[in-house]
């Protein structure tokens, strides 16, 4: 009964004209961002955060969630038509989507991507609705040690999946945590790393760093090589619909992708990109038509596109129920919500039910809107690919400056943003991932606060993090995430130690 009451509450919030409009604007902007190569959902959400300043938290999250979902939908269009993924979770769609387009089957490929995304997005929203309150109830039993360990685990999982080098990814995370220590210490009132500058008393503004590291960095990356080869854009020939045979092959892949994406990408916190690759691997093992994968099989589009949308929904469970972002994009959303004065976490379901259920209901509505937008309007999205790159770059600079200035009316922030843009470019050049920095900034102050609260409880003993079972389990998960890439080497070293020979 409570469940239906909450859902009714949610639809009454999401169904207001202003929230319907915001959901539409969000999914529209998100699709634009997803279609344009080089601007991922992280950059898009960061650039569009200033739009949310005049909104209340419920309206803001509806807008941001729409952008997040929309980017997942939109990314498949460029993968299929240009062989250039709109964002990282659409990389896999290129393998078969582009091949299908080359064979004159772009329409069925786009339809498979859109319908798969709709089904998976709806499923993930349903799961959020069913499991969200349950997870939040469990998390209410968490104390400061559990929250600290949960944040450590969340940071390490994202760090371990962030790039090629664990050392570089960890350095990036610690850099983010270091930036979070700038400003007045909340508990003692002591200034840290302010260098006598009154504008640094509140610390480094999260948006300044996010827009610098993502948006301006992308501008610099594109400027560094403006003479890149023009990619051939295929046109859509024939109908936009799937045949009976396509549907028979689409349905099982969509189901597999949806389930695997939700659990791997969402619950396990591995993210949408990993989810799409796992789904492709699953198709290779379980599909009857696995020999056609890589040559234009519809399973190669249906599975991964379902998986990445399902994972995006799963990541929102982490954000809403635990207050821990499960991906770079949800980290930026968390930063935006903190700026709006809202603290996502287990208490949210009790204290702000209209916020949570309004978001859940708007995700259902948003999914329908995206299905309508993506299929019939695909021709319009394709036209976006014709916008000259130099105009796009100048617009990104303009919106970056506008967004950052409207936060604090500070010129110093503009200079800092440009500085972080250069740092972001250098990080990219050195293959140091930037998303752990954002996670570190967003979680840093909270981590320190929970650690200090834990030590007050334990009278200064660090053993509190190990003697409490949930905290210990989370810390072990953190250790597993960090050591994961080295298990092969550790195994080989152990075998050498015990004198066993290497397997052939």
């Amino acid at each position: 009964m409570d469940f239906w009451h909450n859902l009714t509450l949610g639809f009454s919030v999401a169904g207001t004209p202003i929230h319907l409009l915001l959901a539409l604007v969000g999914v529209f902007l998100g699709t634009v961002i997803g279609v344009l190569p080089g601007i991922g959902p992280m950059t898009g959400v960061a650039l569009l955060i200033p739009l949310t300043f005049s909104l209340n938290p419920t309206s803001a999250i509806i807008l941001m969630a729409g952008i997040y979902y929309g980017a997942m939908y939109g990314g498949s269009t460029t993968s299929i038509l240009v062989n250039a993924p709109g964002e990282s979770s659409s990389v896999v769609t290129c393998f078969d989507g582009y091949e299908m387009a080359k064979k004159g089957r772009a329409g069925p490929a786009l339809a498979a991507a859109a319908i798969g995304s709709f089904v998976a997005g709806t499923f993930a929203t349903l799961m959020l609705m069913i499991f969200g309150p349950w997870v939040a109830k469990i998390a209410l039993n968490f104390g400061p040690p559990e929250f600290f360990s949960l944040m450590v685990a969340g940071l390490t999982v994202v760090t371990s999946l962030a790039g090629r080098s664990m050392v570089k990814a960890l350095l990036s995370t610690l850099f983010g945590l270091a930036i979070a220590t700038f400003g007045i210490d909340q508990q003692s009132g002591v200034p840290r790393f302010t260098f006598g500058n009154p504008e640094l008393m509140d610390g480094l503004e999260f948006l300044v760093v996010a827009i610098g590291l993502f948006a301006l960095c992308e501008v610099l990356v594109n400027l560094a090589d403006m003479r890149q080869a023009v990619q051939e854009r295929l046109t859509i020939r024939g109908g936009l619909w799937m045949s009976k045979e396509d549907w028979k092959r689409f349905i099982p892949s969509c189901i597999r992708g949806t389930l695997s994406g939700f659990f791997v990408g969402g619950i396990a916190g591995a993210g949408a990109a990993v989810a799409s690759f796992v789904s492709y691997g699953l198709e290779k093992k379980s599909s009857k038509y696995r020999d056609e994968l890589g040559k234009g099989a519809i399973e190669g589009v249906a599975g991964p596109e379902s998986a990445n949308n399902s994972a995006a929904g799963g990541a929102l469970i982490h954000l809403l129920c635990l207050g821990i972002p499960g991906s770079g994009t949800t980290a930026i959303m968390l930063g935006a919500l903190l700026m709006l004065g809202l603290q996502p976490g287990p208490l949210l379901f009790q204290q702000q039910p209209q916020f949570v259920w309004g978001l859940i209901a708007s995700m259902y509505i948003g999914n329908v809107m995206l299905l309508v937008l993506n299929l019939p309007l695909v021709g319009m999205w394709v036209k976006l690919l014709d916008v000259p790159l130099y105009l796009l770059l100048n617009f990104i600079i303009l919106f970056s400056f506008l967004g950052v200035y409207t936060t604090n009316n500070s010129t110093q922030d503009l200079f800092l943003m440009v500085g972080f843009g250069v740092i972001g470019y250098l990080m990219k050049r050195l293959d140091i991932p930037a998303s752990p920095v954002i996670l570190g900034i967003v979680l840093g102050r909270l981590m320190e606060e929970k650690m200090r609260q834990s030590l007050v409880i334990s009278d200064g003993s660090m053993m509190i993090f190990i003697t409490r079972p949930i905290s210990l389990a989370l810390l072990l998960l953190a250790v597993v995430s960090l050591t994961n890439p080295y298990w092969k080497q550790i195994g080989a070293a152990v075998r050498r130690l015990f004198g066993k020979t290497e397997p052939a």
Partner: protein
Amino acid sequence: MKPNREERIASLVLILFSLAYLTYAAFLIPMPALKQQLGPDAFPKAIGVGMVILAGIYAFQQFRGGLADQTKAQEAEKRAAIIGAEGKIKGVADLKTMGFMLVVMLLYAFFFEHLGYAISTFLAFMAGCLYLDRRHPVRDAIIAVIASFVLQYIFSAWLRVRLPAGPLSYFGL
């Protein structure tokens, strides 16, 4: 694998940054009047120590060829593909273009309040467009006017968001 000069320099810079951060955390954060379980310097010190260690490992890898093994590099690439890690930037960067646009951005930031949003945005937008592609100056100028003056009006009059007007404040903006 050939040693990468950029990465070696970066590793040394990171060591210096980490040491600077740790030094500040250890000696320059004032102690609060009331004693606490964990002072305001503890967390920064822990981060600083971690950064110094990791920067040291990074420098060791670069100077002693930690990733020189071709097999390890291939495995790293395979894993990177699976987790969707972004592609590496390779090749020589067009420093002239980047440098020009960086100067434009810095001047844009400097004049943002002095000249106001509209004028500084128009100038920065035009400078960027004309430098990067001067084939459509009229079209670019129209877009620049919309992006600057029209947006300034929309933000001030409709959205009630204050943007610096600069000299245009004499005209009531």
